[in-house]
Every structure is written in structure tokens, then in C-alpha cells.
């Protein structure tokens, strides 16, 4: 609750016109996440000492209507505790790192407010005792991710990429919402505090595939992986915590949480393995053609995520958790060091006496040249996946929308249509420019 309270407090004060000094923001952040880390350590100890499988806290129902109720149940078990610990530790560290990195940046306060909202959302996802509650945190994580991608909003690129990511997130969130509804429909609950609801094979396949859609969107798996390189437009600390550590692994956490449903359905398990495998191969190829450090790291993250998905689909539990923890820590460090990469290279170069071995020669050099060229082109265009989604979904939707607009204009004469449109900001700007240009 503490990150959520911080977010609400700082936002409200800002709306009323007060901006806290940088030092105050960073110190409060440090204290809160230090205390949160202690609390998570205490939870871990009490779980270990009691020998129980989970500690649950029921805060009652959020709202109740007839037979439907929205339970506010929090749960800390052996799956969620590592993720909770990862969240509070990494957010605390990123908070300290950003104090220097974003010093005197105009968006300093905005970054911290969004960081707290993200931490709150991530903690809700990892501590939720029902899929209904996971949706709450899930959407908060998505929203903060998008707002941080457009952090440098004076440039067109970050804003356009944020919109792209937002569309992918919202489209894939339909999977989670529908899966939660289907669980209510089939099992009359979406709570997993007392174990995952039992479903028949067919129901498990349906729910599992919808969950996979949500997880694939959040974890940038094939065919949705095009958004991750675009998300690198945000400030480096947010890239580290979102796409190196927490947000990107939320999809894997969702699949781990619902693993019993996935394993009850061969279709869902095979789909998870297939998507993971495709993502690992795809991002390995794409990563080799990336020209900047952050995008290379994003592709490397994707490759590891693909392997994690395969592990989950094969039924492993602890292996993917350990894989995620290790990967998140290493990748966060790499992201945070990315701006200093040239400096690091020069240091290593100097330390080795100026005799660094050349890298970059891989097994693909054994392939015939036409195949290599074809692979290179495909990797440069990120597997044509963005083009595919654009051609299959976006363009037809835009054409349909324009067609419906024409339908709506039926009955309006040309003069009525023109009279209906007051002068817009752009016609004014053009007119102003015309006057200035003489």
C-alpha cells in the first residue's frame, strides 16, 4: 500500500500546486522501499517458520452485487514472495540511481510519481489472490509503462511509440479480462487462494489460451514483440526496471500462477512452448542486427523470456522462477550500465593492453550467402511482424473506420458539412504561417 499512498499523496499535492524538492522525493522513496524490503523479509521468515504454503490476507469484498463479489485477497506464497522481494529491492535501487541520473530533469517529479504507481501495480499483481485483482495491478503497470515511454514527450518518436505500446497492451488485456470472466463462469470464482479452480480439458484450453494472449502481450512474445524495441524510448532507469526486470516478467508470472490450468490442457501447453520457442529464435536473429545498446538488450531479454515460456510450458516450476530472478538482476544491471558502455569498453580495452579479440562471427556464417542475406533482411525488419500486424489488423480497421465515417456523412450536403466544421487549430496555424511568410 505504501507506494500507492506515496503516488496519491505526491499527485494530489502537485495538483494543488506544490512541487516537492528532489532531495525530499528521493529520501522518502529510499525510506519507503527500505521498510518494504524489511516487511517482505519478515513475511518470508514467518512463512518459513510457520511451515505453511501461503500467508493470506482477506480485506473483505471490494464490492458485492447479488451473487457476484470482488474479493480483496492478498497472498504471499513461495511463488509470489521472490517477485515481491524483487520488486521492492529493484524499485528502491532504481529510485536511488535516478536521483543522480535524472537530476534537474524537468520530469524528475513525474518520473518518481509514476515509479511509485508502477511499484504499487506490480506489488498488486504479485500479491493478488485472484485474477480479478491481478487485472487491477496489470493495467496500472501497463499505464505507467506507456506514460514513461512518452517521458520525453517533446519528441515525436517517444509519443508515437507510447501509443503503439498502449494499443498492444489494451488489445492483449482483453485476454486477461475474458479469462477472469470465464473462470467466474466455469468455476464460479477467479480466486486461487484455496488453490486454482478445477476445469475440464476444454475449459482449461479456453482459459489457458486467453491467459497466454495476455501474457504474450505483456512479455512481448511473438507476434507482439515489436513493441519492446519501441519501448526503449523511455529514460534508462525505467527501461531497466520495466523491460529488464519486472514488467516484462509479469506475463511469465501470470503463466506460472496459472500453470495448473495450462498443464491441464495439452493445447495450451503446446501453444506456450511454441510461442516461447519462436520468440527465442526470432529475438536472437533480430538482436544481431540491432544498432543500439538498449535495443540489443531488449532483444536479449526477449530471447531469455522465450526460454522461460518454454520452461513453463514443459511444466517446470522452480527453474523458470530462478531463471527469471537471475535474468532480472543481470539485465537491470546491463540496462543501467548501457549509457556508460563506451566508457566501459575503453576501460576494458585499456586494461587488455589494446588487444581485444574481434567478436561478431557466429554459426550463421556457415549458411549460404543468399540465405544469410534473406535472414539479415528479415531480422532488420524484426521478422516483418509489425508489418504483418499493420496489414492484418491496423490498416483494415482504419479503412473500416473511414468507410463508416463516409456512411455517417450520408444526408449531409457539402455546405452543411463545411458549415458544421469550425476553423481548427491547424487551419489557423497555416493561416498564421501564410501571414508571416507574406
Amino acid at each position, binding site marked *: 500500500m505504501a507506494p500507492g499512498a506515496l503516488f*496519491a499523496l505526491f*499527485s*494530489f499535492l502537485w*495538483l*494543488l500546486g506544490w512541487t516537492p524538492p528532489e532531495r525530499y522525493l528521493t529520501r522518502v522513496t529510499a525510506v519507503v522501499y527500505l521498510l518494504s524490503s524489511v516487511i517482505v523479509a519478515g513475511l518470508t521468515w514467518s512463512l518459513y517458520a510457520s511451515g505453511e504454503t501461503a500467508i493470506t490476507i482477506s480485506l473483505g469484498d*471490494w*464490492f*458485492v*452485487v*447479488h*451473487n*457476484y463479489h*470482488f474479493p480483496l485477497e492478498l497472498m504471499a506464497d513461495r511463488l509470489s514472495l521472490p517477485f515481491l522481494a524483487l520488486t521492492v529491492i529493484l524499485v528502491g535501487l532504481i529510485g536511488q540511481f535516478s536521483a543522480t541520473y535524472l537530476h534537474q530533469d524537468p520530469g524528475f517529479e513525474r518520473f518518481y510519481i509514476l515509479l511509485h504507481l508502477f511499484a504499487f501495480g506490480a506489488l498488486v499483481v504479485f500479491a493478488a489472490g485472484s485474477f480479478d485483482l491481478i*487485472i*487491477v*495491478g496489470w*493495467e*496500472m503497470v501497463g*499505464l505507467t509503462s*506507456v506514460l514513461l515511454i*512518452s517521458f520525453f*514527450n*517533446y519528441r*515525436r518518436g517517444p*509519443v*508515437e511509440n*507510447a*501509443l503503439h505500446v*498502449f*494499443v498492444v497492451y*489494451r*488489445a492483449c*488485456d*482483453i485476454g486477461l*479480462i475474458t479469462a477472469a*470472466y470465464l473462470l*467466474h*463462469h466455469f468455476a464460479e470464482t477467479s480466486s486461487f487462494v484455496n488453490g486454482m479452480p478445477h476445469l475440464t480439458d476444454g475449459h482449461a484450453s479456453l482459459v489457458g489460451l486467453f491467459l497466454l494472449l495476455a501474457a504474450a502481450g505483456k512479455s512481448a512474445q511473438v507476434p507482439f514483440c515489436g513493441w519492446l524495441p519501441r519501448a526503449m524510448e523511455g529514460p534508462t532507469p525505467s527501461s531497466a526496471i520495466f523491460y529488464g526486470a519486472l514488467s516484462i516478467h509479469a506475463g511469465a508470472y501470470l503463466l506460472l500462477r496459472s500453470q495448473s490450468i495450462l498443464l491441464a490442457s495439452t493445447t495450451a501447453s503446446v501453444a506456450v512452448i511454441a510461442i516461447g520457442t519462436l520468440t527465442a529464435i526470432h529475438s536472437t536473429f533480430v538482436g544481431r542486427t540491432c544498432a543500439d545498446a538498449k535495443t540489443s538488450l531488449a532483444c536479449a531479454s526477449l530471447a531469455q523470456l522465450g526460454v522461460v515460456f518454454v520452461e513453463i510450458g514443459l511444466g517446470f516450476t522452480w527453474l523458470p522462477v530462478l531463471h527469471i530472478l537471475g535474468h532480472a538482476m543481470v539485465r537491470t544491471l546491463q540496462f543501467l550500465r548501457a549509457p556508460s558502455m563506451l566508457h566501459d569498453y575503453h576501460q576494458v580495452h585499456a586494461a587488455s593492453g589494446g588487444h581485444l579479440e574481434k567478436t561478431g562471427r557466429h554459426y550463421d556464417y556457415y549458411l549460404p550467402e543468399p540465405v544469410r542475406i534473406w535472414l539479415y533482411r528479415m531480422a532488420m525488419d524484426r521478422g516483418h511482424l509489425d508489418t504483418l500486424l499493420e496489414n492484418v489488423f491496423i490498416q483494415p*480497421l*482504419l479503412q*473500416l*473506420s*473511414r468507410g*463508416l*465515417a463516409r456512411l*455517417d456523412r450520408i*444526408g*449531409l450536403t457539402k455546405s*452543411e458539412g463545411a*458549415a*458544421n*466544421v*469550425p*476553423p*481548427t*487549430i*491547424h*487551419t*489557423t*496555424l497555416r493561416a498564421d504561417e501564410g501571414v508571416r511568410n507574406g
Partner: protein
Amino acid sequence: MADLSFPLISAAVGIPLIAAAVAFTWDTRARLAGILGAAGATLCSAKILLEVNAAVGQRLAEPWAFGLFTADSLNATFLLLYSLLTLGVVVLAPRRDTSARITGATLFLLAATLSAYGADNLIVLGAAWVLSALPLIVAPFTGTWRPRAGLAVSCLALLVAIGIIVQSAQSGGDLEPFSLASLQGHNYGGSAAFALLLIAIVCRKGIFPAHAWIEDAAEAGPVLPVCLFINGHLGGFLLARVVIPDFPLVSLGAFPILSDLALLTALYAAIRAVAETRARRILALLVLSQSACILAGLESATQEGITGALVHIIVVSVATAGLFSVLRLMEVRFGRTFTADHYLGLGEYTPRLAVFFVVCGLALVGLPGTLGFCSEDLLIHGTLASHPQIGLLLPVATAMNAASLFRLFSKLFLGKARGTMQGITDALPRERWVLTSIVVFIVAAGLMPSRIVTLRTNAAHAISQLWESPKTSPSAQYAPAAETRLSR
């Protein structure tokens, strides 16, 4: 039936009418008259809500009012909500939107809408319905011909339906043919009256194919009063107040079609908004899409769906009032309307207005932490439970609405500001206080929604009771379909 302690509904209607007369005659004090009129209506409505809550499920009649008005769990919240919305809009409206003509018409609209909410009599309801549409049909909110035509058809259909119902009740020997309370379960007027009522609802709410007038009205008219007009949601109210009580079994049989039409409208408007570039039209389409979800929820015949719809009315009204207000304030600051063709970067100069815009917008599309999340959750559960295949359209439409809204936000507030925009001011204190109240309400009610949901559950329960125990069943031919739907 118990009585209210004072003719509070008549007072809530009368005070804005007097204030409207003052505003029309005293141009320089129009805003003050508007604030006093709306504040008076708000106080009366708040007292009504308190008395209705204390009476637990009872309908409260007005003393000395000849059975014209009544208050219950369904309309008490709407009375307060609409009065508050009008008060907020009058307070924050830019000076050029507070002329005697516009303020007087806005107060007239408030009085007519409150009369429709409070009506316990078909004649009063019909008259209020027509009077509330007058500012758009004749003056001063008139745009192109489509708003006038749509609303004229809606008024005509309702008046004819009321005539048929009254005649049918009189020939059936009903002693109170005008009373809404005596309608319950009698199927007065038969399928002709039912069809006309549905036409009135479809035209008023802008359900496909009668949807285009809402876009035209939002684009060409003064946007704040038009927003208030749309947020009256009298179409949904007529459904709950007249159609379901008079035709419980017929409506259950016919609702799948109407509900599908509403969901189709939600999707249609969402798709239309995707490529639309004019800011006012985008917002109008979003309101249209989300308002159609309200109708779909009411017609789901499930308690979750009906409660979700009643809560969603609050969300849509408050959020769209915030969105249109911010847009209007920006238009006035720059002197022109906006299109979403380029990134304007207005957030650099108006960061608080940008935050108000995005919070209201995200509440409209159901972001967690806002009241919109609760209403969307209930709506989705309700519509999916009543018709699963078509109900899947609702989350799809909501997702597209969210994308359109974020696109509009990005185009207006993000990007690099151009040089000619220097000198734009952020929210003024009176604007800031009203918009902060809206945001605080949306978020506080979203974090602790149980009070509002419970308040609306009582009304939803009263509506669903009408289906579960119709007095008579002259429409027995619809009974099998109705039973099938109720068993869900």
C-alpha cells in the same frame, strides 16, 4: 406510500426555472444566477437522496403536488448527479459560454431533466422529455438538421406512445391512467406502444442507426450544454422507469435484439473513433460508445449488468463532463477547435489540464483505481452472462475507446509545442477546484466503490423485481423466452 418532508422535487425544478428567468433578463449576472439556481437544485436533490436512503426501498411522494413527482432509489441519485454536473459546468464555463442565452437555456435544461427524473405521471414525463429537447430542436443549441430531426422523432414517438398507453389504460378501467405507478405489469398499449417507446429511446440515446446526431450536436453546438444534454441519459431512464415496468415480459423477450443493437453501437462508435481526427467528434463518439454500454447493461436482465449500467451512468456523466470541459477550456484559450492531425504539445503550457483530461478519460474507459473500473467490470460480467458471444464485443469496444482516447490525449498534450502557442495559461483557480473535485470523486469512488455500488444495487434490485414478479402476464407469448433469460 410515504411522503417527502417538503415538495423538494418541485423546489429542485422550480429554483432553476426562476434562475433561468433571471439569467434571461439580467445578462450581466447570468453566471451568478446559474450558480445559485444549480446550487439550489443541488441542495434539494441532496436532501431528497438522504430521505430516500432513510426510507429504505420505499417510493416517496411529494406533499401537495397532486402525484406529479415521486422519489425512489432509481431517480434520487440521478437528481443529485445532474444538479451537481450543471453546477460544475456553470462554475467552470469560460466567460463567452455564460451569456444570458446559453446560461438560461442550460438552467431550463436542468429544470426539464429533473422534472423527467422526478415524474410520477406520464404527462409530466412526456412534457419534460420534450422541453429538455427544446434547446436543441429550436434554440439556442441548434446545429445541423440531424440533431433536430433525431430529437423531434424521439419526442413524437414518446408522445404517441404515451397517448396509446393512456387510452389503453382508460379502456382497461384503470382509475389512474396517467400514473407511472399503476403501469406495472399491465402491458398497456401493447406492441405498438412498446415499439414507439423503443424508437424514442433509440433516437434519444443515439443507438445505431440513429447515432449521427450526437456527433453533429457536439461538433456544431456549444459543447458544454450539449454535453449536459447527452449526460441526462433520459433514454436509459425511460427504459427503467416506463418500458420495463409496463412491459416486463415483452421487454425480456425483445431485449436480446435491443441489447445486441446497443453493443453493436458501442463497437460501431469505437471503430468510428479510431480514424476520426476532430477532437469534439472523437469525444462524442467515445460518449456514444460508452453510453451504448449502459443500455446493453440495462438490457442484460442480470443484477450485475443493471447495477453496472446504473454506476456507469455516473461514470460517463462525470468523466465526459470533465473531458468536454477541459477541451472547451483549451479551445477558448486558443480561440479555435482542435484536430488530432499533429502533436500540439499543449501539455507543456497546461500540465494540470492535461492530467485532468487523462484521468477523466481513463475513468471513462475503465482504468483500475477509478469508478469506471467497477462499472466496466460489472457491465462485462452482466453482458457476458446474458449473451456470451456478443458480450465479448464490450471489452473489445472498450479497448478501442481507450486507444482512441490516448491518441487524442497524445495529439493534444504531448509533442513539441509550436511557437504561436505562447501565453496559454493553465487551469484557473475556479476551473482547478471543479476539475479537482471531479478527479477526487472519480478516484475516491473507485478506491471505495461499495457505497455507490450498494446505492445502485437497490435500484437494480427494484428493476429486476419487475421481471421476477410481473402482476399479470397479458403477454404470455413472450413468457418462455423470458423464463429462459431469467434462469441465466
